[in-house]
């Protein structure tokens, strides 16, 4: 029985592109930012990722890992990923030398609907490596030319030396963004806030909660408490967004591994409105 009309010859859903490591930069312990270029520049020119989408990075023999995009290099259009060394695949990526090639499929996922947020007060909340996908939001906002009433960035880390992208905060501030940080544990010389990220929400000026958008990325417990703090400030549930995580294998909705309730995180997410997922997240081991 013939299904569908086209007769494709390549299994495009699994199509791997060669990418080459062109630079890497240490951020915080076991976290580095990698810049990759497409070996075939024509593929690179076609490649467009929205903030909040991810790529599958592949090292033969080790496998693939879903890694959020952390922005696009302004000079070259190369893809940028901030990666935490956490498993077999990311360990292998950390062993790469400049000029070596690896595989890439993507971009996948829905990304943040930034265009819908124009004229709103955007509140970005990132915990730990959760700042990596939010950096692509920050980059997009700085480059988009769209108008937002205000942008507030709340960043949490375990300790002062684990605050991701700290060297960039001044640039963000100079773009008019409000940047607040907090740490779980201080070290000598730290003059800033101590405490969990959601507590920062209580301190920010919020002229109209109905015109606020909250975008969270970090551990689930941190996102849940951030949502509660946002609701406490009067922000409507459907204006709070989470970027969720589960290990992914195919990234195209075919393998079933990243399912949460009615969603596959890879194709329906990873970005969800809080009211879409809050009941599902309350049930342990769903």
């Amino acid at each position, binding site marked *: *029985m*013939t*299904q*569908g009309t086209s*007769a*494709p*010859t*390549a*299994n*495009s*859903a*699994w*199509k*791997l*592109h*060669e990418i*080459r490591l062109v630079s890497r930069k240490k951020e915080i312990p076991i976290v580095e930012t990698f810049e990759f270029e497409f070996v075939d520049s024509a593929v690179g020119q076609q490649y467009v990722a929205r903030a909040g989408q991810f790529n599958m990075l*592949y090292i*033969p*023999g*080790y*496998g*693939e890992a879903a890694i959020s995009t952390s922005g696009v290099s302004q000079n070259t259009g190369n893809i940028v990923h901030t990666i935490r060394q*956490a*498993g077999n695949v990311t360990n292998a990526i950390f062993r790469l030398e400049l*000029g*070596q*090639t*690896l*595989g890439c499929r993507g971009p996948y996922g829905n990304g943040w609907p930034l265009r819908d947020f124009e004229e709103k007060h955007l509140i970005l909340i990132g915990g730990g490596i959760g700042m990596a996908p939010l950096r692509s939001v920050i980059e997009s906002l700085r480059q988009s030319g769209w108008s937002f009433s205000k942008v507030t960035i709340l960043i949490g880390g375990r300790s002062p030396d684990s605050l991701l992208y700290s060297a960039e905060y001044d640039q963000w501030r100079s773009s008019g963004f409000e940047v607040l940080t907090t740490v779980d544990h201080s070290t000598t010389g730290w003059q800033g806030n101590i405490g969990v990220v959601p507590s920062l929400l209580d301190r920010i000026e919020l002229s109209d909660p109905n015109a606020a958008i909250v975008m969270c990325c970090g551990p*689930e417990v941190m996102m849940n408490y951030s949502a509660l703090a946002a609701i406490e400030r009067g922000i409507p549930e459907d204006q709070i967004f989470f970027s969720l*995580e*589960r*290990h992914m*294998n*195919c990234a*195209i*909705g*075919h*393998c*079933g*591994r*990243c*399912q949460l*309730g*009615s969603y*596959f995180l890879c*194709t329906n997410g990873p970005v969800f409105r809080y009211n879409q997922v809050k009941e599902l997240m309350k*049930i*342990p*081991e*769903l």
Partner: protein
Amino acid sequence: MNDFRYFRIDQFPEFLKQLMQSGYRVIAPTIDQEAIVYAEIQSIDDMPQGYTDEQKPGYYRLQHTGNQRFFDYAVGPHSWKRYLFPPLQLISTSIKSQDGWTFEDHVDEGEPYAFLGVRACELAAMRIQDRVFLEGSYVDTNYQNRRNASFIVAVNCAVPSANCFCTSMNTGPKCKSGFDIALTELSDGFLMEIGSSLGNEMVTPLGFPSATEEQLTESESISDHATEQIKKTMDTTDLRNRLMGQLEHSHWKEVADRCLSCTNCTMVCPTCFCSHVEEVPDLNQERVDRRKSWDSCFNPGFSKLHGTPVRNDTRSRYRQWLTHKLATWHDQFGESGCVGCGRCITWCPVGIDLTVEVAALCEEEP
């Protein structure tokens, strides 16, 4: 109105020969290890004749009837998914280069298979997997090639098993669409319903006569009789919402105490599509295949977050399987993921019957 033809039982080899001469490799029921399984045949002698099956929860036995009938049994442990969505598939190959790797996608052009003996529930299962692999955001083109290359000869069930509940899932026992040809085994031959232009091209050269009113009536009564014999039921009324309202029901634990988390139900299910990809390097580490194989939500490592399993016990894994199959599948694909074939009941080593579990799960807790 489809075209109906008739051929005598002694003309069955002619029909088979026509399939083969048209370039198809014919996959049909055969007996292996005392069960009906789908394998390639060369002649009708390779097919079981005079067999029926007895199925109960955790029980399957073939019985020899002594008659000459070809299809008086229900479905066995195999389903056609093993040909359309093979248990092991090559995805791509990576070849070591001077500065890293180059990649070759594996293209499966699709083997020209004629599937002979596809039951109504199995047609429904194919349709369900089409939605997963062809109608979502991404198309699995290798699956599409395999699907396009196949020719489907369906068979209307005459003798359902005690584990069949296709009538509850509205998928059978009579084949309604999705086939090139559908056969009904009559007392002295086969009624042949032509369901597609491809099917018509196939049978026209055979010159089989149009079916008579008597033959059509006999076929109807066989299907009616099969429907009457199906006693197992599942109440599907608002089932999605009823199950999703019971995610913390104590009965999940009760099932988990019996469930071995062996994955049998997911392996025999004709709609289960979960998979994982593994790396298969050669000894020099210079050529690495990526191979996709069937996986199961009953495997502890199936779903992970930050390197640790999301579903730590059998309770949560059984809940994932059952609620996906019968509830969240509706949200994702617009229909149930269950076709009522009963395989998960038959091949469960401890005889867990999902129709019984669903009924218990839908009862309010005291």
